[in-house]
């Protein structure tokens, strides 16, 4: 680990997370996901019926690599709620199926 200042992309990611209560980093856009895993999370979000913002990592290589370093998580999609990393496709689906995701959103006043 280094103690250097955050990289510009990490700062940019931090700003995005501060701006959007629910933020999904995905491949493609919600209306046209470019990967089955991103599509699966979009379907969960649609079923929850909450408003969320999405970042298409395929449109920005710096973000695509930067978000993996930011969360220490090697794959896309990645879901964040109030700046907190919730998980990738498997965890989001699991939390949705168990009702925990809805509960979490309600706790954060986003349900």
């Amino acid at each position: 680990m280094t103690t250097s200042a955050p990289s510009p992309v990490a700062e940019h990611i931090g700003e995005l997370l501060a701006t959007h209560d629910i933020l999904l980093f995905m491949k493609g856009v919600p209306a046209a996901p470019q990967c089955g895993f991103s599509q699966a999370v979009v379907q969960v979000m649609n079923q929850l019926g909450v408003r969320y913002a999405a970042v298409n990592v395929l449109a920005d290589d710096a973000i695509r690599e930067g978000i993996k370093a930011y969360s220490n998580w090697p794959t896309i999609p990645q879901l964040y709620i109030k700046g907190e990393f919730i998980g990738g496709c498997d965890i989001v689906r699991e939390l949705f199926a168990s009702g925990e995701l809805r509960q979490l959103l309600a706790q954060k006043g986003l349900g």
Partner: protein
Amino acid sequence: MAMTAPEIEALLKRAFPDALIELTDTAGDGDHWSARIVSAAFRGKTRVQQHQLVYGAIGPDMGGALHALALQTEVPA
């Protein structure tokens, strides 16, 4: 190059010697894997932390040579 089941299993066994590991080739193309891993190493950890441990065990090939790995992590009963 995709990773083979023995390669994935060897990496996981090295990181989680006690683990029960079930690998499934979900698409039948040798490139999309599903893993169920039961290990005491996951005890007391959040799902995110559990999956991070697994990704750490796979190393830099995760997301590269290993394109897709659906994860189910569990603590032994």
